[in-house]
C-alpha cells in the first residue's frame, strides 16, 4: 500500500474517533481536549492534500488560540452541573437526529454517487503547487495587497473592539 493511503487512513481514523469521543464525553474540558486532537488530525489531512498553509493555520490558530478561548469560556461558565440538553428537551433530540441523518445522506451521496467534475481534475498539478506558503505569499504580495492590508485593519478593529467591550462600565 502507498504511504499516503496508510497515512490518510490513520489520520482519518484519529479524526473520526476523536470527534465521536468529543461529542460523547460528559465533561466539557475533556471534549475540548479531544477537539484539539481532532484539529491535529485534520491538519495532517491538509498536509496530505498539499495545503501546507492551511495545515499550519489549523495548528497555530485553531489548536492554539481558538482552543485557548474555548477552554477559557468553559472555565468561566462552570458548566459542570448542567444536565444533558437532550434530557431536558425531547423534541430537540428528534430534531437533532433528523439533521444528522440528512447530513449523513448528503455526505454519502457526495462520496459514493456523484463523480468529481472534469473541471476539477484538469488543474490538479496547479492546485498542488498553489497550496505552498511561498505561492500564497507571492499571491498575497502581488495581487491581493489591498485585502491583506484590509485584514490588518480588521484585526486592529477586533483588538480595539475586544478591549472596549470587555471594559467594565459604571459611568
Amino acid at each position, binding site marked *: 500500500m502507498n504511504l499516503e493511503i496508510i497515512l490518510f487512513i490513520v489520520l482519518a481514523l484519529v479524526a473520526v474517533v476523536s470527534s465521536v469521543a468529543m461529542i460523547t464525553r460528559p465533561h466539557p474540558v475533556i471534549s475540548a481536549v479531544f477537539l484539539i486532537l481532532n484539529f491535529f488530525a485534520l491538519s495532517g489531512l491538509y498536509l496530505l492534500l498539499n495545503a501546507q498553509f492551511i495545515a499550519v493555520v489549523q495548528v497555530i490558530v485553531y489548536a492554539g488560540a481558538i482552543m*485557548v*478561548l474555548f477552554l477559557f469560556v468553559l472555565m*468561566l461558565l*462552570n458548566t459542570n452541573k448542567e444536565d444533558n440538553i437532550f434530557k431536558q428537551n425531547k423534541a430537540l433530540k428528534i430534531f437533532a437526529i433528523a439533521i444528522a441523518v440528512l447530513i449523513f445522506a448528503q455526505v454519502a451521496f457526495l462520496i459514493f454517487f456523484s463523480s468529481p467534475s472534469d473541471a476539477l481534475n484538469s488543474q490538479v498539478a496547479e492546485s498542488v503547487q498553489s497550496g505552498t*506558503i511561498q505561492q500564497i*505569499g*507571492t499571491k498575497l504580495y502581488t495581487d491581493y495587497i489591498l485585502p491583506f492590508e484590509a485584514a490588518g485593519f480588521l484585526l486592529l478593529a477586533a*483588538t480595539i473592539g475586544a478591549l472596549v467591550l*470587555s471594559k467594565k462600565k*459604571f459611568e
Partner: protein
Amino acid sequence: MLTEFGKIFVFILLAVVFVLIALFAAKLIRPSRPTKEKMLIYECGENPVGSPWIKFNIRFYVVALIFLIFDVEVVLLFPWALTYQDYGFYGFLVGLVFLLVLGLGMAYEWRKGDLDWERGIISPPILNEILKNKKAPLKINDSENQITEEIKA
C-alpha cells in the same frame, strides 16, 4: 524521500512513541498500592475542600482574546517572511504597513493600561459620591501616614 513536513511527522511520531514506552515501562516496574489518601487530588499537601472550579478574573479572557488576534497576525506574516525578499523594498513596505496597523492596536491597549495587571480599581458612582461627601479621599499612602503620625503623637 522525506519532505520537511515528513521530518516533522517522524519527530512527532518519535515523541509519542517515546512517551508511550516510558509510561508503559514505568507501569511495569513501579509498585502499585493505591490508597484513598494517595488518590486524592493534590493540593499542596492539604485535603481538598470543595471543587477547584472557581470563577476567575475576566481579565484572563481579555488576555486570551488579544493573544488570538496577534496569533492570526503571526500566521499572516509567515507568507510575508518567505517571499518579501523577492519584491525588494516594496515587499518590505507592504509588511511594514501591516505591522504598523497592528502596532496601533498594541499601542492602544498599552495606552489604555490593558497590559498592566493592576488597572486601577473601578468603583460604582454611588461609592464615589459617598467618598466625595466625606471630603477626605482615602488613599492608602495617606492613611498609612496618618497612622504613623498618630503613633508619633
